[in-house]
């Protein structure tokens, strides 16, 4: 117990406690959900089996869960970059669309390239467009003090409508569906098993999370971002170029969100359809907050979201429980996790030691 008071093991305690709080919140939510189900006359055990277990053990189920989770990993991580620096990038959705269109257009127009080059160009193009979309609100914030929440939300509408307009008028594949032509094989992120959506984009997403974790925990840049995120003014006085940091983190955030769009286009679908995203960008915000802006946490929460998302459909097909119920349960889980997190924050990040609160404040 005493060891917990010491510096190195404290971070371990914190990590343990944040995982614990999410787990406890999850269990409470499941319990409350079970009560509701019982009142509705359903069997909670059967429902939870189809929602949480069956997707993982049924044929191809795991691949579907992974396929669902992949874009969420990217958007969740994208949110993390900005939120760490205390910049609220609500514009992930627009940046995702921008990346998706760039990848789609580069993917079908550039012919005769070897896959490695073609893919690299698509990646670079998507990341640049995503970063450029995030650059606008970042500069507006830094230079003119315009709050990024307003500008990013507005940009979401502007960007997604411009993208739809471009697809319909310039890049449309002849046919009923408003979508671009299929990208060439040299630009495809190969799917693990057809026709499942899960593809090599997943591996890239996981690697990115690991890299991001390393950046935030082990590099000077990461500590500067955290410092600026905790107290911008103090960071400035300590000699950190905070304005530059805000712009860089925003652009990184936009670039990663754009990769989420790229993954859908080059990996899961092979083309870009107008309005393909059911709100990946907004889900990403939720994920990164639940994961408490920890890149590895993002990975776990995104997978959980993917599981719930596919599990919900599974439940819908296998039982008579309506789809709405899954959304209620998802809402429950988020509500409880946020409550738990707030509780934890009030205690300085440590669940069981009241005394460490003061120690934490001093640091």
């Amino acid at each position, binding site marked *: 117990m005493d060891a917990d008071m010491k510096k190195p093991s404290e971070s371990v305690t914190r990590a343990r406690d944040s995982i614990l709080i999410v787990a406890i919140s999850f269990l409470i939510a499941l319990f409350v959900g079970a009560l509701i189900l019982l009142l509705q006359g359903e069997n909670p055990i059967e429902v939870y089996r189809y929602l949480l277990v069956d997707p993982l053990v049924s044929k191809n189920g795991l691949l579907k869960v992974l396929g669902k989770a992949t874009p969420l990993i990217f958007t969740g991580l994208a949110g993390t970059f900005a939120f760490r620096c205390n910049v609220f990038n609500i514009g992930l959705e627009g940046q995702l669309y921008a990346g998706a269109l760039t990848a789609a257009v580069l993917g079908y127009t550039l012919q005769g390239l070897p896959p490695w080059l073609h893919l690299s160009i698509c990646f670079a193009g998507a990341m640049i467009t995503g970063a450029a979309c995030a650059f606008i609100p970042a500069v507006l914030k830094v230079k003119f003090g315009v709050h990024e929440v307003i500008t990013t939300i507005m940009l979401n509408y502007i960007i997604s409508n411009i993208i739809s307009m471009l697809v*319909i008028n310039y890049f449309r594949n002849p046919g009923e*569906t408003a979508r671009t032509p299929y990208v060439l094989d040299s630009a495809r992120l190969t799917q693990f098993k057809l*026709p499942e959506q899960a593809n090599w984009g997943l591996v890239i997403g996981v690697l990115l999370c690991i890299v991001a974790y390393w950046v935030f925990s082990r590099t000077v840049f990461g500590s500067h971002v955290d410092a600026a995120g905790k107290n911008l003014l103090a960071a400035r006085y300590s000699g950190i170029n905070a304005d530059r940091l805000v712009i860089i983190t925003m652009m990184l955030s936009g670039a990663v969100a754009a990769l989420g769009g790229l993954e859908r286009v080059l990996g899961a*679908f092979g083309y870009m359809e107008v309005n393909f995203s*059911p709100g990946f960008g907004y889900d990403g915000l939720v994920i990164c907050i639940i994961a408490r802006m920890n890149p590895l946490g993002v990975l776990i929460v995104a997978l959980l979201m993917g599981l719930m998302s596919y599990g919900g459909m599974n439940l819908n097909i296998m039982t*008579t429980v309506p789809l709405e119920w899954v959304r209620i349960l998802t809402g429950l889980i988020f509500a409880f996790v946020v409550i738990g997190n707030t509780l934890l924050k*009030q205690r300085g990040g440590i669940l069981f030691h009241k005394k460490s609160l003061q120690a934490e404040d001093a640091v």
Partner: protein
Amino acid sequence: MKKNVFLALLMVAILLFAYACAPATVESTTPDDTQSAEAVSEEPADAAADEIAAADVKVGLVLTGTLGDQSVNDQAYAGLMYCEENYGVQVKAVECTDASMYAEAAQKFCEEGYNLVVFNAFSQEEALRTVAPAYPDVAFMILDTVVDDIANVACFTYATQEVSFLAGVLAARKSTTGVIGFIGGMEIPTIQKYQKGFEEGVAYVNAEGTVIAKYVGNDGNAWNDPATAKSLTLDEIANGADVCFHAAGGSGLGLIEACNEKGVYSIGVNIDQSHLAPDTVLTSALTRGDVAIQIFVKSYLDGAVLTGHTTLNCANDGVGLVESSFFTDDDKAIIADITAKIISGEIKVTNVMDY
């Protein structure tokens, strides 16, 4: 602090509980399903008994959205329910909230041993193309688009020019000014097909009659912009139109509203839209996805499952007008007569997009 947290938790729990109670009423539809399934099993389906045991046949329907849209999804669900009640097959419809669910839902149906998988809209074509080749033993169908290059897929399109012709005939008969309005969503072949058929129908009755045709827009919003459709319609009415027909999806609500305000007739499309304005909706030009599902399921039960392209037309009841209280006996007779002539080929309606 502990007390506050507890109170907060309690409040959240109460709120959620209150929220959760609301869909309990929606829930009540599900016991009905099981009841009707039981009811069916008591009186075995007669027609299909000789070919394939209908009770073993499972039909999955992948919807493009959620039920209650009073449009294609409800229509397809009605078709599915018809099959359950009349053929005795097992059915399941899955609501999809985003495009990536189409393929997943279809795959899940296939993995669960469903025999037939139904897609109800053209927007699901890509999902169909992904899934169907991977499950050659499952029979697929899709509505409103042509997919005739996969062996285990049946596709259905509507002869909308035929029903538009009938609508044109009726509009010309009801019009006193001889001016008739048309609003399309977007100026694309699918909609021009309605317009052409409609114009020909008007001309068939009244060679002097004119059709004022206007389009809502040229982007995705064109199908969901009732305000623009309404102002276009008011403009047409100001120019003398006293019957207006639309092929504009959600925008068409604006036309029906404008006609209702000005007290002139409107003609709905796709589904029976008379509930929107019972006093002024003359009829609706139906495109019956439910009939397509019935045809498809029936063909499977008869042992020769449909594949390739089928047109839903007057002959197979896949398109048609809704008979309303505005129809006089003369109207009914003439519509029936013209329908028969279209079926026999005596009247040829132009199809601007001959497949």
